[in-house]
C-alpha cells in the first residue's frame, strides 16, 4: 500500500459535471481488485485538508493506467476537475476490499446495478467477470438522459438497461423498476450507488449479492473509525459488531451489514 504521485494522462468531461481521469504510475500494477478505491489528495497544501475517496473504475496494466470517474460536486472534486494532463496527483491506494470474483463460476450470470457515481467501480468488475467467462447484465440508473455515461462501454460487455428518473431515455423510473421487469435468472448481484438505492436493490434482488458502501472518511485505512457501519446480527455474532467501510469494505456481502 503506497502513496504515489501519479501523472495525469487524460481528463475529460463525459457528462455534465462527470469527469473521467486517467492516471499513470507504478502503483497501478497493484490495482487488480475491482471495487477497491483510491484516496486522493486534491491539492498540494492543506486546503482542502482531507483526501477524497474515489473508486477504481478501470485499470490497464499494459498502459500502467488507472481510470477514475467522478462528479465535480464540492470543493475537492471541483479542484480535481481543474487538473490538467501532465499534472501529478497524490494517490493513496488501492484501499479496501473489492468485489469477490471467485463466487461466480464460468458460465454463470451476474447482475450489476449502479446508480450515478456508484457506476464506475462496476465497470472494472464487469471487465473482470467477462474475462472469467461470467455473463454480465447491467442496469444503470440516472436522473435524466444527459447524465448517462459508460453506457457504450458496458454494452460491449453484455446486456444493459438504462433507467432515467424522468423517462427521457431507457426505462422510466429507478433501477429497481428495471430489475422487476427483467429476467430474474442471475446467480449474484453487485451494486453500488446511494444507500436508498442499495436497500431497494437488495430487497428486489432474486439472489445473494454484494453491495458497495460510501461514508465520510478520515484516514481511509482503518485507523480512525470515522467510516463504520453496523454489522448485521448474524455477522456480528462472528465477531465485531461493526465494519469499517474503508478497510473491511467498501464492498460487503449484502447480508453482512445493516443499511
Amino acid at each position, binding site marked *: 500500500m503506497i502513496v504515489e504521485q501519479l501523472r495525469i494522462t487524460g481528463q475529460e468531461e463525459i457528462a455534465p459535471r462527470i469527469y473521467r481521469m486517467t492516471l499513470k504510475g507504478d502503483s497501478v500494477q497493484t490495482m487488480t481488485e475491482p471495487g477497491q478505491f483510491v484516496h486522493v489528495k486534491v491539492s498540494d497544501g492543506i486546503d482542502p485538508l482531507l483526501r477524497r475517496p474515489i473508486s477504481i473504475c478501470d485499470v490497464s496494466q499494459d498502459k500502467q493506467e488507472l481510470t477514475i470517474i467522478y462528479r465535480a460536486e464540492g470543493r475537492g472534486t471541483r479542484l480535481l476537475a481543474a487538473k490538467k494532463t501532465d499534472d501529478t496527483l497524490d494517490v493513496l491506494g488501492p484501499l479496501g476490499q473489492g468485489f469477490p470474483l471467485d463466487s461466480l463460476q464460468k458460465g454463470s450470470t451476474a447482475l450489476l446495478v449502479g446508480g450515478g457515481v456508484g457506476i464506475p467501480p462496476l465497470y472494472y468488475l464487469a471487465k473482470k467477470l467477462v474475462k472469467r467467462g461470467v455473463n454480465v447484465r447491467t442496469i444503470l440508473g440516472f436522473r435524466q438522459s444527459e447524465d448517462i455515461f459508460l453506457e457504450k462501454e458496458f454494452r460491449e460487455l453484455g446486456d444493459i438497461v438504462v433507467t432515467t428518473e424522468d423517462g427521457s431515455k431507457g426505462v422510466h423510473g429507478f433501477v429497481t423498476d428495471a430489475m422487476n421487469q427483467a429476467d430474474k435468472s442471475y446467480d449474484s448481484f453487485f451494486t453500488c450507488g446511494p444507500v436508498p438505492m442499495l436497500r431497494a436493490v437488495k430487497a428486489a434482488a432474486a439472489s445473494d449479492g454484494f453491495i458497495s458502501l460510501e461514508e*465520510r472518511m478520515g484516514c481511509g485505512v482503518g*485507523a*480512525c473509525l*470515522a*467510516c*463504520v457501519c453496523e454489522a448485521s446480527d448474524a455477522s456480528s455474532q462472528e465477531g465485531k*459488531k461493526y465494519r469499517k467501510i474503508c478497510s473491511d469494505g467498501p464492498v460487503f456481502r449484502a447480508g453482512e451489514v445493516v443499511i
Partner: protein
Amino acid sequence: MINMNRELPGLSMKNPVMPASGCFGFGQEYARFYDLNKLGAITVKAVTAEERAGNPVPRVAETESGMLNAIGLQNPGLEHVLQHELPWLEQYDIPVIVNVAGNTMEDYIYVSETVSRVKNVSALELNISCPNVKVGGIQFGSDPAIAAELTKKVKAVSQVPVYVKLSPNVTDIVEMAKAVEEAGADGLSMINTLLGMKIDINTGKPVIANRTGGLSGPAIKPVAVRMIYQVSQAVDIPIIGMGGIHTADDILEFLMAGASAVAIGTANFVNPFACPELISSLETRMAELGIDDVESIVGRSWKTCSSVSLSSR
C-alpha cells in the same frame, strides 16, 4: 550529531514524535506503511472498560484547515485490548501510551489499574477531555477539582506514569494544569480538540450525526501553541504537545512553546507516512537552524536567551 532523544516520565524516546490518540488505532494499520520502531512512542486509541459502539455516522466533517470528528470513543473494550491489541505491540521496541477514558471515576480507575500492569505499557494518558461523549468525560475536563481528584485516584493505582490530556474548551487552562500537577500527574498532553460544528446548508442540519464534533488540524495550532506556552511556564511537569502539527517547523514551534515532545493526529490522515517523514525532516531542519539537541529548544520562547544555544539564521 543531532540529539533527538527524549526522556520523559516512563518514556525513553529516540525522537520527540508520536502519533496522537485516536488517529492511529492500535498501530496495526500504519504498520503496513512503515516500521513503527521509527516512532518516538505510540499512543493508542482511547480504551474504556466495556466495548463502545461510538456515535452514529457521519462522524467526520472537513473544515477550513481542519476537521471535525465525533467518533464517540468507539473501542473494543479493555478485555479485547489486553488480549489482542497490546500483545501485538510487543514486537515493537517503543514506549506505548494507553489513552484511558470512561464515564465514571470508577471506570477510569479500573481501566488505569489494569492497563498499567501490562508489561509493554509505558504510561497512561487520561482522556478527561473528549468532547464527543455525552456522559462523564467532559465534566472531568473542565472542573479543576474533579480533574485533580481523578488524577489522584488514578495515580494511586497506576504502576506507570500518568499523563493527563487537557481540554482546550476551558476559560483557564493554566488552572486545570496546575490542579492536575498538584494531584500528582507526571505529565500533560495538550491539546485535545476544540468543540465545533458544521452545518450542511443543503439539508440545514449538522453534518456530523452527533451534531457537534472536535476540531483538529492546523486550524487549532495557534490555540495549542498559546496554551502550551502558558502552561509550560506554570508547571514543572513535561508536556506532550499536539494540535495541528503538519510540518517539522510546526514541531519546532511546539517545542519552543514549551512542549517536551509532540503528537501527530490529523496529519496521519492526510499522509499516512506523516510521522516518519516528520521525524526525518525535523532532523534536517534542526541541522539547518543549527540546533543540535531537542532539549535545548524546549520552552525557548519564554526562557531567557542565555540558557539556549540557537544560532541565528
